[in-house]
Each structure stands twice: as structure tokens, then as C-alpha cells.
């Protein structure tokens, strides 16, 4: 548990540098306060690269999507891709940053085989946006923590080519050279590895939601560099070290923890921290030195003379604001208020939506779980629809080892099934229980609605009218006569249970209903069957249900 015993009051040092700490200390490193800042490099979800019209596709065969400019051929010049500025501005607005009216591009020089021009075009002197914040919550040892992590700046820059190392030689793939990157630099506001992980998770979700990036850390479309230092609460911030190229949240947290311990070990033994850039060895779960401050290269930043300053007007900012997709928090609020869905429904729908593809160039998401839900819910009960989707559809797909995709069961078909169940042409689950996804409450009943759904998943793309299919598969629900027959059969078959029920044991009624559903192959209406069985067995009508 975090101890509050060592809280101190904020106090600024005389020189004005930040050195305060109001935090309590963590039991893992009592008496020490870690300070963490993160630089996130994320690939902007644009179809084409930042300064060339080559397509940004990094999975294609090597050196296939390369323009003359990307390969730094003589005589080529950069032409800015507006979509990248749009998405950068969207990000700045979503984080509450101030978008600068004027920003400019600079060249950062160093020689390396993955940098064809010998320089990277970035924004060193005057970035796209500064300021802003991201609210981050995380739970550590059952205590919930929340903090606003401030953003230092957001800038646009080129990505390098991809190097693959082999013994004796290196292969260079220029598909990625010149792709658009956004660098989001945070202030050193984080105080624990868990908070850092939560920050990256939260930022990633935001970037995906607004369409700025697909935030795929495995593919490398989101990479982190972390700055870590430690200090005793109330004293100046300590010397920081940078850990480069962390590609998983878990790795990030382990690296930070390892680095904190390393700093504390050194400082505790009276040594000082050398300002270094370090890498992270995943296998040994520790950081290692890449280069010291003295070895740091001089990048010789020079304003790029080919690129005029980027001028951004208030009109343009309003235009971007107007086109901004809703944030996850807004969507959740709408599902709760407008559709009156339960929190569990919302969680499931949001998690289905979150994994859908992020479209390019900031276009609207189509064919995702939420637009599917909206379509089916048109003119129907939202909660009913949510239940069918989160329960039966997801369940049916999971049974087949598939994840949700709107093509699997067209919205119109699902809508039809739901309508037919409501009208009684198909059987579904009792409508009472639609307030919650009820698969956990009752044993799965073989309803004909669900059976039809599963059948449609097996054989999609049928041009056969649904009605005909229902009859062909003999799924149409039984009328009252048919029901009577099934009930009588059930009572005969399970005479022991029937006898028990006649004596007043109503719990066993479920088994009889189940038998009715089984023999009718789900075509009987469970609720009607229950009513009829009670009647037949001479039991009073159930007052709890109505």
C-alpha cells in the first residue's frame, strides 16, 4: 500500500527548476521518488508518406513502395502530405494542446544506412503543437490512482528505413523511409512504472479512436523512449537516463523498474548517475548503456530551406475539430444515455469496436461493431439488440473461433431474426431477461432464433430469403397445438421429474422446459412452455413472472 507518511509540501527551488514532490512513496523503493517522462513515436495513419506520394505500406515486399525522394535520389524535393498535418492537428486538439499558427521543419543530420538523405526532416525549433494533457488512471495494489500527465510537445517527422541485421551484413528496406511519424513528448509527470504503462495504453487508445494511428506496438507503429530518474522527495530531480525503443507495455514497465532500481543502487552507494542513453535487454530484463552524453552526436539542426513554414489558421483548426470522430468517453456516454445500455453491454461493445481497423487519412470508421449496432438498433429496442449482439452473435462466432466482423451476419439479417423472435415466428430467450446478457444466468436454451443465427454463420451469403430458409431448416416456432404436444411428451418422458413438480418442487420445472426445447429443436417458446407445463401439472401460475 502506498504510505502517506512521507508526503511533503510542494516547494520550488530558488533557481526555479522543478524539484517539488507531493507524492507519497512506493513500498518498492521507500524514500525514493521515480520521475518518468515518455516520448512516443507513432506512425501516422496516412495512406502516403509525409513528403512523398509513395504509398505507406510496410508489409509489402522490400523496397517496393519507394519514390525517388524516399531513396534520396539527386534532384528530388519534399512535398508535404496534408493528411498528415490533419491527423497531427486532430491529435493536438484531442490532447488539448495549443496548435501553433506557425511551425517549421528542420533537418537532423547523421550518417546511417537507414537514413538515405543523411538527414531526417523533423520539427526541432518550432513544433506543430505544445501543451495539453492526458488523464491517466491505473489501479495498483487495489488502490486507484488518477493523474493528468501533461504533454510537452507534438511534432511531425520522417521515419527511417528498416534495417535487418544478419551476421556479416545488414539489409535495408526503404518501404518505411519517409513515412510520417508523430512524436508526442510528455512532461516528466509520471511516478511509477504502472502509471507509465497506463499512459501509453491510454494514449494508444486515444490515437486509435481519433484515427491518427493504429497504435500497433507489435508492428512497430507505436514505439516509446523513456526518461527515468529518481530523487528523494523534497529534493531536486535526479540525473535522468533515456531508455530507447521499448515496444511492449510490459517491456516498458520492466525496463523502468529495472532502471529505477539501478539508479537507487548507485545513489545509495554514494555514486552518481551518468547521463546516458540506454537500451533494454528483454531476455535479461535490464538496461544497458548505448552511449554516454559525451558520445551523443551533434545533429547540426538546420532549417529545411525547401519547406516553407507551416501556417495553420483558425478556420483550419475549426474544420479539423468539426471532423473529429467521437472519443471513447463520448461514445460510452452516448451508449449509456441515448441507448440506455448497461455497463457490461457497453464494455463488450466498446471492446469489439476498439479492435476494428483504423481507417487511413482520418476517414470515418465503417463496418465496425458500433455502426453495426446502430444499424440493427434502428427501430428496435437498443437493449434487445445489444443483447443479441454481445451474447448470441459474439457467442456464435466465438464457438467457431472467429472474431466479430459485420460481414459475417449482415445487419439486416440479424434485425430480421430479432423481429421474428419478437413476433413469435422464432423462439428466443424470454424478454424479461434482456436487461443483462443472460448467458450466465440460465443454462443455454436451444432456441430456434439462435439456431438460425448459427446456421447463417455457417453458410453466409445466401440469396435464399430468410423465411424460406427457416422453413427448410424446420425452425419455425410451434404454435399452441404443437406446444401442447411437446409438453405432453416431455411430461411422459420425464415422469419422475413431473411427479416431483406436481408435488410442488418448482425447481425441477426447468428440466421439463429444457426437455420441451430439446424435443422441439428450439422451436417452442420457453416461456409459453413453462406456463403450459404449470397448467398441465396443476401448479399455480408463477406470480413472480409477468
Amino acid at each position, binding site marked *: 500500500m502506498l504510505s502517506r507518511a512521507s508526503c511533503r509540501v510542494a516547494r520550488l527551488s530558488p533557481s526555479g527548476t522543478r524539484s517539488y514532490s507531493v507524492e507519497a512513496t512506493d513500498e518498492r523503493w521507500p524514500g525514493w521518488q521515480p520521475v518518468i517522462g515518455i516520448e512516443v513515436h507513432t506512425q501516422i495513419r496516412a495512406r502516403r508518406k509525409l513528403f512523398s506520394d509513395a504509398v505507406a505500406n510496410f508489409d509489402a515486399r522490400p523496397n517496393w513502395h519507394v519514390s*525517388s525522394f524516399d*531513396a*534520396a*535520389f*539527386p*534532384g*528530388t*524535393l*519534399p*512535398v*508535404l502530405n496534408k493528411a498528415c498535418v490533419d491527423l497531427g492537428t486532430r491529435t493536438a486538439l484531442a490532447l488539448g494542446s495549443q496548435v501553433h499558427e506557425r511551425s517549421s521543419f528542420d*533537418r537532423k*543530420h547523421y*550518417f*546511417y*544506412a537507414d537514413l*538515405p*538523405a*543523411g*538527414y531526417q526532416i523533423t520539427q526541432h525549433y518550432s513544433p506543430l503543437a505544445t501543451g495539453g494533457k492526458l488523464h491517466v488512471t491505473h489501479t495498483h495494489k487495489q488502490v486507484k490512482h488518477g493523474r493528468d500527465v501533461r504533454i510537452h510537445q507534438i511534432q511531425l517527422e520522417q521515419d527511417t528505413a528498416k534495417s535487418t541485421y544478419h551476421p*556479416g551484413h545488414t539489409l*535495408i528496406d526503404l518501404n518505411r523511409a519517409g513515412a510520417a511519424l508523430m512524436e508526442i513528448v510528455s512532461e516528466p509527470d509520471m511516478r511509477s512504472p504502472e502509471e507509465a504503462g497506463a499512459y501509453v495504453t491510454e494514449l494508444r487508445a486515444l490515437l486509435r479512436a481519433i484515427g491518427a494511428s493504429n497504435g500497433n506496438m507489435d508492428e512497430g507503429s507505436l514505439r516509446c523512449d523513456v526518461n527515468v530518474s529518481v530523487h528523494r522527495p523534497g529534493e531536486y530531480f535526479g540525473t535522468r537516463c533515456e531508455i530507447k525503443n521499448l515496444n511492449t507495455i510490459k517491456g516498458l514497465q520492466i525496463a523502468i523498474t529495472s532502471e529505477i532500481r539501478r539508479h537507487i543502487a548507485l545513489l545509495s552507494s554514494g555514486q552518481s548517475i551518468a547521463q546516458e542513453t540506454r537500451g533494454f535487454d528483454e531476455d535479461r530484463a535490464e538496461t544497458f548503456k548505448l552511449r554516454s552524453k559525451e558520445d551523443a552526436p*551533434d545533429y*547540426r*539542426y*538546420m532549417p529545411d*530551406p*525547401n*519547406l*516553407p513554414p507551416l501556417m495553420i489558421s483558425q478556420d483550419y483548426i475549426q474544420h479539423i475539430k468539426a471532423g473529429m470522430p467521437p472519443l471513447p468517453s463520448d461514445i460510452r456516454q452516448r451508449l449509456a444515455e441515448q441507448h440506455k445500455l448497461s455497463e457490461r453491454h457497453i464494455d463488450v461493445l466498446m471492446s469489439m469496436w476498439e479492435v476494428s481497423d483504423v481507417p487511413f487519412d482520418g476517414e470515418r470508421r465503417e463496418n465496425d461493431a458500433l455502426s453495426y449496432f446502430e444499424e440493427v438498433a434502428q427501430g428496435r429496442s437498443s437493449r434487445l439488440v445489444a443483447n443479441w449482439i454481445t451474447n448470441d452473435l459474439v457467442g456464435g462466432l466465438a464457438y467457431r473461433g472467429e472474431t466479430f466482423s459485420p460481414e459475417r451476419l449482415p445487419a439486416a439479417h440479424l434485425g430480421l431474426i430479432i423481429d421474428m423472435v419478437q413476433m413469435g415466428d422464432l423462439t428466443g430467450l424470454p424478454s424479461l431477461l434482456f436487461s443483462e446478457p443472460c448467458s450466465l444466468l440460465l443454462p443455454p436454451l436451444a432456441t430456434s432464433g439462435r439456431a438460425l443465427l448459427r446456421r447463417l454463420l455457417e453458410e453466409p451469403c445466401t440469396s435464399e430469403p430468410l423465411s424460406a430458409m427457416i422453413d427448410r431448416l424446420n425452425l419455425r416456432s410451434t404454435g399452441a397445438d404443437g406446444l401442447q404436444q411437446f409438453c405432453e411428451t416431455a411430461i411422459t418422458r420425464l415422469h419422475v421429474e413431473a411427479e416431483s413438480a406436481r408435488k410442488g418442487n418448482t425447481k425441477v420445472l426447468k428440466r421439463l422446459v429444457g426437455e420441451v426445447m430439446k424435443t422441439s429443436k428450439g422451436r417452442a417458446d420457453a416461456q409459453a412452455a413453462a406456463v403450459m407445463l404449470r397448467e398441465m401439472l396443476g401448479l399455480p401460475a408463477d406470480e413472480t413472472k409477468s
Partner: protein
Amino acid sequence: LCVAVKDNLCSYWLPTTAGSLALSNFHSPYNSTPLRLLLRAHAHLLGKTNMDEFGMGSFGVHSASGPVQNPRWEGRVAGGSSSGSAAAVAGGLCDVALGTDTGGSIRLPASYCSIYGLKPSSGLISRHGLISYADSLDTVGLLARSVRVLQRTFGIVNEWDEKDPTSAPKEVREAAAQQARERLQELGQGVTGLRVGVPAEFCPSELSASALAPLRTALRALRAQGAHLIPVRLPSTPYALSAYYVLASAEASSNLARYDGVRYGFRGAVAREEERGDTARMYARMRTAALGGEVRKRLLLGTYALTADAFDNYFLQAQRVRKLVKNDFDTVFRAPNVLSFPPSAALPGPNEQGVDVLLHASAIGPAPRMEDVQKQAGRELDAYVQDVLSVPASLAGVPALSVPVSGEGEGEGSVGVSVVGQWGWDELVMRVGEVIGDKIDD
């Protein structure tokens, strides 16, 4: 039109070497825009012309393909860096040649070879396909034996290009052209009422007597035809040369970083054992072999100027000087500089105290002898001093035309006369050139 193209403008069918060993085997996958426009207009491409390596040189002797002889003045250098283009035109091999001018590389060889050399306003002719030396200074231009051919060729290549981010937008071109047209109408067919500025700072102590004679001839001719001669001052001129070399070298160190032989061009011998895993050493060895001495010198100086310690004192300071030089021109010219105003703003009226054009000598003297240059008989800085008169117009991005004017007592080579105008006033500059220039070709 038969056209020769300087070898730093990319061509698809012929090699593009930029006068360097680094690109000796390079075939560009595309045509530079100026060449493409000329070919579209059915011009005939004669070939690619020799040049100082990557545009760095004033005499035309720093080329991997050897020095260029001056066809008009035997035994003398042709000037650089558009040495081959000037020689091809002066020698009658073609009608017009494409050249490039970063600090005087068209005007100086034009002056040495006694032909017309135009450095247009910056941003008018597309730089797409021009191998960059210093992007903020590089300008594609033309060399010919008559103003009429210059005008005709200029009309073909003077177009906005979406592939060049520094290509002047159409509204801006139109705004300046509109003003220039009105003034040309006022002047009628000739130059009556033309206000000609003679800047005092463009007669430095290095200037030889032979450089002043053609200038005097030109001024007398203009005055005889009704022009007014006005002495003017451009006080920042003495600082321009230093600022130019700092900026040009710094930008060159950036633009030439790509020549490592990995993706194209000269690669040299395979990596040695001790270079494994050390990209920097391999690059250093290759680039030392592939790039000539003059280029290496400027790259090293340019790299230094960009280092963290030196940046403020050299690069930034040079940018400040550049701004002063630009302001000097804007102060003396009658017409406002349309680049200084936002697109929607109304332009102010003309400054009646200002001048329409400036006239000055194109070079400090005639072309030096080839043997003197190759033996480096002069002082080491002589080569750089040649540019002192041409760099101010380069820093300001204003149009400048070197005109062949026969002076008295011409024995050992000529010196041209430069006509400089406000940004976008290329037509007026060419008209003045037509009035004062020798008729070599008709």
C-alpha cells in the same frame, strides 16, 4: 530550339554526373522539369554539359571530366560553374543552354565567354530535378547569344510546378508580372524615363579598369536613350560574400550527405575488414574517394558552420546578413517586393525615389588564363572573390542578367554588365539587356 543542359539537371536518357566522380555512373529515373518542358515544346537536346563539381567553382576547372576552355578567348577559363553551358553557347554548338546559378554560376561564365546569361527571379523556374547544392540559393537559368532566344526559352520553362515546394504560386507571379507590365507600358518601346541605379558598393577595390569600361558604355547608351542614372547605396554589400559562403557551404554539407554510393552512384572498393559494423568509417572512405578537393573543402567548412558551437555565430549570423542584403534591394527598388506581402493584401504603390534596375560590372575582371588558374598562380582566395559582385542578387533572389558589352581597348577578354531588377521583373531586366547588349547573333 537546340538546347544543351548543364549536367546537374537530371535527364532520363543521358547520364547526369554533376561533374563528379560520385555520380559518374548515374542515370536518373526521371527528367528534371525544365528539361521536360523544353522537350514538350519540341526542343532538341544536344547533350549534357560539363560543370564544376556539384556547382562549386568559379572557373570551370573543378570537374571530374576536366577543365572547360573558353571558346571566345583562347587560353582562358570559361568560368563556372556553368562552364560547359557557356562554352557550348559561345562556341555556337546550340541555340540556348540551361545552366544553374547559386552565387553567380551563370552570370560569371556568361561574362567570361561574352554571351548573355540570365539568373531569373527565385521560384519561377522549377528546381525539380536540379541536383541541390544550396537549395535556398540554387536557381535554374539560361545562357544564349541573344535576348530574343532567352525570352523565348524563358517563356517555355517559366511555369509553376507542384513537384517543387518552393515554386512561386501563380497569384504571386501574376501580381509581380502585372506591375512589371504596367511599367513596361509606361516606358513605351524603349527605355525613356527608365530609372537606372548605379550602386557604389559594386565598385570594390578589386575591380579592374577593364571591368569599368563596358559598364560606362552601357550607362552612356541608356542615358542617350532617355534613361535617368541615379547613384544608389546598398550598404550591406561588403558582408554579402562571407554570408554567401557560410550559407552555401552549410546547405551543401546537408545536401551532399546522401552521396554514399549505397543506393546509386560511385561506390568504390568493397568495405574493408576494419570497417565492418562501422558505417561512418565506410562512408568517410567512399566519400573521400568520390568527391573532389574543392567539394570536400566546402563540405567540411559547411559542417563546421552547422555544429552546435558555431551555429549562432556563423549560420544564424549569415542569415541575418542575408536579410539585410534583401532589405537593401527592397529599399532601392521602385517596385515593392510582392513576396513581402500576404497574398490577399493590397500592394503599396511604387517608391518614386527608387530605381527600376541596377547596373554594375558582372565580374571584377576578364577571364583568367587557364595556366594561371591551374598552377594557382594567384592568391588562394582569388577564386572566391570572383563572386563578390554576383552573390548579392543570389542572396536576395532577384533577377539578374549578364550582358556582353564591348568596351574600349578590349584585348584579353571581356567583362559583362549585370542588369538587376526587383523580384518578378524578369521581362524588364531582359528588355534593358536588349538595349545595351552586343548583337552577337541575329
